[in-house]
């Protein structure tokens, strides 16, 4: 089974978020909680789909990641673009924050 994390869109503004340790949601994919087997993945998704999450997130699902020494990196082009922002507008999305902090 591929290593997975849970992602969703934030209800209020639709921005991309990930389920982190302790049940909080984060916009940093590297802070997402990793599920390394089917049982962990099912439990992680169940937490994201709990009724109390319905006013916080939309459409949670499991996505494959590459586990780089405990840090999850998106595996697919789609999830890389979701995590960063449009590849044709690097001034928008989370990548813009990274650029700003580096600038």
């Amino acid at each position: 089974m591929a290593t997975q994390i849970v992602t969703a869109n934030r209800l209020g503004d639709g921005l991309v978020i990930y389920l982190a340790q302790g049940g909080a949601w984060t916009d940093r994919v590297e802070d997402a909680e990793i599920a390394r087997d089917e049982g962990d993945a099912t439990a992680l998704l169940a937490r994201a789909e709990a009724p109390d999450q319905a006013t916080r997130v939309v459409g949670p699902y499991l996505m494959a990641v590459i586990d780089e020494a405990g840090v999850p990196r998106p595996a697919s082009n789609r999830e890389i673009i979701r995590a960063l922002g449009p590849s044709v507008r690097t001034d928008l999305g989370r990548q813009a924050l990274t650029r700003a902090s580096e600038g």
Partner: protein
Amino acid sequence: MYRYDEFDRTFVEERVEQFREQVARRLSGEIGEDEFRPLRLMNGLYLQLHAYMLRVAVPYGTLSSQQMRKLAHIARRYDQGYGHFTTRQNIQYNWVKLKEAPDILADLAEVEMHAIQTSGNCIRNVTADHFAGAAADEIEDPRIAAEVVRQWSSLHPEFSFLPRKFKVAVTGAPNDRAAVKVHDIGLQIVRDARGRTGFKVIVGGGLGRTPIIGATIREFLPKRHLLSYLEAILRVYNELGRRDNIYKARIKILVKDLGAEAFARKVEEEWSSLKDQAVDLPDGELRRIESYFAPPAFENLPAVTSGFEAKRFEDRDFARWAQRNVDAHRAPGYAIVTVSLKPEGGVPGDATAEQMEAVADLAAHYSFDEIRVSHEQNLVLPHVRQSDLYAVWQGLVAADLATANVGLISDIIACPGLDYCNLANTRSIPIAQRIGRRFAEIERQHDIGGLKLKISGCINACGHHHIGHIGLLGVDKKGEEFYQITLGGSADENAALGRILGPAFSAETVVDAVETIVDTYVDQRRAAEGFNDTLARIGLDPFKEKLYAPH
């Protein structure tokens, strides 16, 4: 332009307040996403990769300066300072917040706009020739019929839950700029032997995973019967269209399965019981709608303006722009200006708030306050005096909107692709940008001549790749972006579907492949022969040999 009556205004305003309540209930948790999703989609609000996306209808692509300024305001106030004009003459905002969506709709309602029926299995925004009311080759303004269909199809109770979405396009000219043969229903205004105007009715065209050129099911429909005939078509589709398989639910599949003649017979049978009922518009109401599309007060001008001609000699950049971006107008001394939204290396169809305002100002000063959105993702100033063309061009240069590439290889239609869209498999925009840069030298583009290149990031074909002279379809191969090339498509009155050239090219090699195709065409063409004519004469083989032969 059409103006809302009291019914239109009340309906749109009530809908805004209804949606405001629905959003509040969603945010409070009173309703869940399963209940809310169809409600937001009915108001044009999608959830895409990065955020909510609002698709705003621009009926038959016509905007006033005031409406364009409002679109700019929305881009600046609620979004990231830009909007994206689409292949259905709409505008999309990519970074909308849910709680602000009702405010955006309220702002739109102030200028008689909305986002209703820009999603869902209903009759979508009716599109039309973007040169409507201005084109020299026009028989009648197609926007009158488009407005009639818009009013009839808005919240039509019988056609709000069709098997699938339904798109109608109208052209009033023999040279089809509205791609009517690849719509669910295409209407072409024609004259009969007695000189009366009516509609040729084309049904069952479409792109997507099953591309089909529409079939003509009636050569001449008298204008007064438009709505009863459309109602007959929709009834046959609503009753017999498949609902068990989303991929086979469009009317094109029904027409294909039944055969066009059998489908036409069913429509005629249904119509025979409808046409004498009160479905068609009374003459008075039709005249009322027609009056909104009366031509503006054109001056009596000479057909050729000496000042314009002189400027073309004096200023080479202006001459080049005028050659590609200016078209013949029906009124002597006037011209149609196409504003390219395809700058070198830009995102096809994107415009900043400032650019929208610049176009609005130019329209107010020089084009009777009218703007059009084209399905080719450009803007149009439809009624410009030839003597004002130089001033308009200078205004466009100042707004970075004067790229002289309309109809050339860098005037690319591209869907948003994987950079924005939830359905896409691959990116479209970066390929369009790279092709634009590869052919950046404008003299080279002009030497190549008219060439339609269209890119879709998935099989849904929003980038119209099937009907490009050169079409690129993005496909995902084990996580890598590849692009399948088709040649020979056409969206005009000679509508045709492109043929697949061979194995797909990687993202790294596809721009080289496009250049090889273009070079092969230029080498092989005779005199001013167009791309599809050359292709018809020499076939695919010379292109395949250049692209796939071992080197």
